[in-house]
């Protein structure tokens, strides 16, 4: 016998179920197409990395030359996987936090298809030898307006949902998600207009490109992932946020500091003298918002040890936040203008920090959120906890390899480069071990994600275990969750109160 549906908790659960149902197609579309691009990107990442130490590998085809494979890999990672995973999070979080259903699923799905088409055409453009040669913006110049228009068609609905949300305090995750939604067009349009449409000095174009790389990470991927991490921590543990003040400090310090970062890559370049130093200072100061967010999240999760042990979402989220802290510390230590910046400016450390930001931090949090959200929108549970564990462990091993060998190896490589008494070939041969390690790390990451893709496809095909989930009435007891099931099931009574702030 189900209890009468008159209590607030049951109404909340019904509402959440309705919202999840309305979001099923958009969220699953973005997660699965994003995962497909992730697979492509990882494969090309392995190929590209292998070519650094074995240049003869697959060397006879123009489509597979290193100079095209690497941009294809990184652009697929950013715009194929990263943006689409972010879309899934934005749609789900904003709908849930505004208590509004998704009413524009059709438009969003169409726009998502256009996005995928844009990315596919862009990648084809790169591989066929029509890339623009601007790092992270290598898509041929027709692609960016297509992506921009489909972006608007996807994210304007969450913006509207925010505006029409019911009265009440806005949780910090919602501010982060809204900020990310607004920041991305600002940086994307600025960079593309100044690089493609409005002619300027070639060196300043390179500077704006460097700024865009940093801004994309810290003004889009970071707020999306931090907002998601906060939300996962709160929902999975059912506990209140550790510190409200710290969350506000984290957000506004990110908003103020992050737009200044990025130009430290132009140290020694004949641009305005203050630009690289401002960039380096801002990159170092990013330590503040990062530590605020990481401390807040981890301190929220920490008291719930037993939940942590059984929750995939929390494991991934915590690993992601740890990677974020490692990234912030590395950014400080490796960008000191007089000591380490000359060494790391043109070494593998830059790429390693990109991997840490995009995979170690952003993607791990996205995986955690996927493990949380997908059961809710598909009304199925994940089939195997072992697959999830393997996904987690190998991703962590990959990130450890990247940290120890590439981040630190980049310093060693830089020392070799700066040793001007030796001929250049000495520096080249010194780079080889670190290139091999990078390939190894990508192989580990690809291996870990094979399990994720398998799992996701099964869920997409609705082959998961049918389960009563917390968002449906009557699921408070007797559910047939797997071991790694989230604890919001147990925390449901607290859940509503924790979220009525």
């Amino acid at each position, binding site marked *: 016998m189900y209890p009468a549906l008159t209590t607030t908790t049951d109404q909340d659960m019904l509402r959440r179920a309705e919202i999840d149902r309305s979001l099923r197609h958009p969220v699953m579309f973005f997660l699965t197409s994003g995962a497909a691009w992730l697979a492509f990107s990882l494969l090309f990442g392995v190929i590209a990395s292998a070519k650094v130490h074995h240049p003869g590998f697959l060397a006879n085809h123009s489509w597979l030359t290193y100079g095209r494979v690497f941009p294809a890999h990184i652009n697929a990672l950013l715009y194929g996987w990263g943006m689409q995973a972010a879309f899934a999070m934005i749609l789900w979080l904003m709908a849930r936090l505004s*208590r*509004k259903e998704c009413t524009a699923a059709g438009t969003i799905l169409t726009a998502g298809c256009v996005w995928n088409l844009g990315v596919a055409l862009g990648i084809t453009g790169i591989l066929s030898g029509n890339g623009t040669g601007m790092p992270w913006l290598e898509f041929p110049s027709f692609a960016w307006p297509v992506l921009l228009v489909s972006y*608007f068609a996807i994210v*304007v609905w969450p*913006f*509207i949902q925010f*505006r*029409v*949300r*019911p*009265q009440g305090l806005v949780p910090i995750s919602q501010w982060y998600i809204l900020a990310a939604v*607004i920041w991305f*067009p*600002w940086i994307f*349009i*600025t960079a593309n*207009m*100044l690089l493609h449409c*409005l*002619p300027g000095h070639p060196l300043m174009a390179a500077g704006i490109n460097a700024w865009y790389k940093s801004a994309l990470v810290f003004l889009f991927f970071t707020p999306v992932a931090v907002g998601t991490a906060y939300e996962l921590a709160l929902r999975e543990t059912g506990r209140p946020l550790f510190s409200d003040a710290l969350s506000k400090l984290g957000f506004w310090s990110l908003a103020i500091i992050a737009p200044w970062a990025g130009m430290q890559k132009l140290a020694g370049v004949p641009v305005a003298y203050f630009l690289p130093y401002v960039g380096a200072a801002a990159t170092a100061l990013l330590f503040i918002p990062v530590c605020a967010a990481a401390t807040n999240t981890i301190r929220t999760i920490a008291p719930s040890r037993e939940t942590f042990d059984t929750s995939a979402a929390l494991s991934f989220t915590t690993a992601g936040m740890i990677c974020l802290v490692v990234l912030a510390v590395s950014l400080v230590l490796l960008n000191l203008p007089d000591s380490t910046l000359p060494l790391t400016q043109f070494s593998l450390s830059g790429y390693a920090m990109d991997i840490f930001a995009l995979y170690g931090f952003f993607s791990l949090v996205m995986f955690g959120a996927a493990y949380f959200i997908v059961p809710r929108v598909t009304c199925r549970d994940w089939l195997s906890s072992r697959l999830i564990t393997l996904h987690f462990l190998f991703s962590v091993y990959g990130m450890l390899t990247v940290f120890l060998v590439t981040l630190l190896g980049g310093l060693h490589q830089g020392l070799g480069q700066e040793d001007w008494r030796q001929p250049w070939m000495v520096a080249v041969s010194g780079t080889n071990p670190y290139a091999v390690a990078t390939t190894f790390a990508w192989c580990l990451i690809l291996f870990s994600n094979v399990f994720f893709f398998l799992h996701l496809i099964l869920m997409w095909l609705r082959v998961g275990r049918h389960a009563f989930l917390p968002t449906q009435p009557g699921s408070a007891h007797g559910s047939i969750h797997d071991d790694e099931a989230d604890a919001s099931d147990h925390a449901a009574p607290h859940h509503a109160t924790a979220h009525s702030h």
Partner: protein
Amino acid sequence: MDPTRDNPIIRFATFWWALGTFLVFALLLAVIWFFNRTAPDTLEDVVAKVRYETKTRIVQAQAASLTQQAIDAAIPTVAQQLALAKPAAVEKPEQVVPGSPTAAKLALTPAVNTPASEPAPAAQVPLDPTLMDVGKPPTPGKERSKP
């Protein structure tokens, strides 16, 4: 849920506010661009300016020394002189067309013993290399050695 917060009008208005928010910096950039749209001089332009000035000076100097009016005034006089001058027959052996009757007539005349009238050639003197060097163009990057 408060119905006055969520209605189609607010949603419609928010749609356009959202688009405006996304595009605010693009519009700002367009405005700034509009006030800075004259293309600045490139290095080539700056260097070309000097060349154009030189060209203008030369054209002006030429125009000053030989005006169009002077040329116009001289044309009738020269034209008349050319018209009055008659072409005269000039006899030169190199003007004889091969195969013409004149050439056949010349071939019948007895040959002249030319070796007897020509002096013997001078002994072969080896060419002086330094004199040859004087006439050669300088090799690039090297200074011309003074003779």
